[in-house]
């Protein structure tokens, strides 16, 4: 079975107001060849906004790697790093 890359977009209020809202159509922006290898999920507050050391909202988890001040391009870039590792 193919293992998909999990992308969790924090939809806690802090993340959402600071741009998480714009990440909700991330799936549409993924390159078509990787779309099926990625699973995009909205997550309730992941808690990273509580500690300044993680940087600024919005936060996205690509597998277990944190992307802060996330935007569509940053997230796709991170996803692409994982794409090659996915075992078909």
């Amino acid at each position, binding site marked *: 079975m193919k293992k998909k890359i999990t992308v969790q977009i924090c*939809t*806690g*209020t802090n993340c*959402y107001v600071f741009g998480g*809202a714009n990440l*909700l159509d991330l799936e549409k922006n993924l390159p078509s060849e990787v779309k099926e290898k990625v699973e995009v999920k909205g997550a309730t507050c992941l808690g990273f906004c509580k500690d300044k050391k993680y940087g600024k909202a919005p936060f996205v988890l690509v597998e277990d790697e944190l992307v802060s001040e996330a935007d569509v391009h940053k997230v796709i870039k991170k996803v692409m790093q994982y794409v090659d590792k996915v075992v078909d």
Partner: protein
Amino acid sequence: MVDNNAIRIKRELITKISQLAFEGRLVEEIDKVPIEKFPKGGISTRCCVYKSRAITKYRIMALLGFRVEDEEDELKALSEYAKEGLDRQNVSPHVLTVIDEACSACVRVNYFVTNACKGCLARPCVINCPKGAIEIRDGQAHINPDKCVNCGLCMKVCPYHAIIYVPVPCEDICPVGAISKDETGKEHIDYEKCIYCGKCMVVCPFSAIVECSQLIDVIKHLKSDRKVIALFAPALVGQFQSPMEKIAGAIIELGFDDVYEVALGAEVTAHNEAIEFKEKILEGENRFMTSSCCPAYVEMVKKHIPELKSFVSTTRSPMHYTAQMLRENFPNAILVFISPCVAKRNEALNDEYVDYVVSFEELGCMFIAKGIDVDSAEEYVPKQRAYKSGRGFPVIGGVSEALKYYLSDDDKQKLSPMTIDGINKKSINLLKSMVNRPLPNVNFVEAMACEGGCVGGPTVISLPKIASSKIKRWIESNNK
């Protein structure tokens, strides 16, 4: 929507000011904020941290409810403004302000000769310029800004496509020509023309046009013993992923004493509009009628197409009716409208019942300032539940749909609506032409200044598409 850095900076400041106001440290701490944001040796978004600090000061001034244009004493500290703001009884009578220090980065002349210019022998730009504004220096064409009248002929005739059009975003997007430069190159808003659509504010890449906020006035009342009621525009439901009851609960956590849906007033608007439609169109002489709930549209008609005014419904807005109902029940309460748009600020200033306006993004930032996560909020069910018809107003087409609920089956068949999906130069021309040449098969015009309806408003958080589908789901889940 945060799709650029300017909006991020704005929301960071709204959050900071809200936090200080909630914690009662506004006067003590406010003067530190520009320096904390741009410390020595830190990253500046301008030429240097000092300029960034100066502009931040003006941004805060506007957030405290003051117009930057009204600054008389440059030495007056933010703490003094904060004190004045907290002491004032009446709300700031202004809606927008231009931060002149932040502006001025835009071109005076819209046509620009790029390096692709070869200084050719033919020189059609020089020959065709009706004002003699172009000369060749150092092998390239140069446009003299003092002579250029922005006609664009040079761009059209250049065989190398070396001359480009550089827009001034605010002037370009303003549908009514209300914003222009003064002799120093700074933009000024002509309030005889402005319709408060807020498009200039959204589009300015330097975020030089901002609202005069009522944030600290509202927070002051939230902390007081006075009863404060939030009336939320139905578009709010599309601004967060959580159900309406959670959003209402989060509003209660902010310190509001109660929450009401403006969709309640929208039902009154739709009901009145249906009666008027029957009288004036189905039984009367008028060829068509337009909606009146979008305040930027109403302002546009008043200031720019007065001859269309008799076609606009005389019905008041959903905000007005909701506030009227609440005022009758709670004569001493403070009524705060939660708004997707700038034009509602202007409407509220002239409304006898609404006391304050808080924008969607301000509400979102207030949640963050108080550490409230909407999804974790305790659900609150507003006491009075609105119907489908009123809740559909914020998505384009929703007003026409609502009208159908209040028309008889026969009359419903006779309604043939069209939508003005966003006010721009083109739709204004269409509306102008309709005064003398009404469109066949159109007897109702639903006019919205923002594309997509209120979900596309200038202070929204969610992508309009996502907000629309959330609202539609909300309406569908509502049985009534």
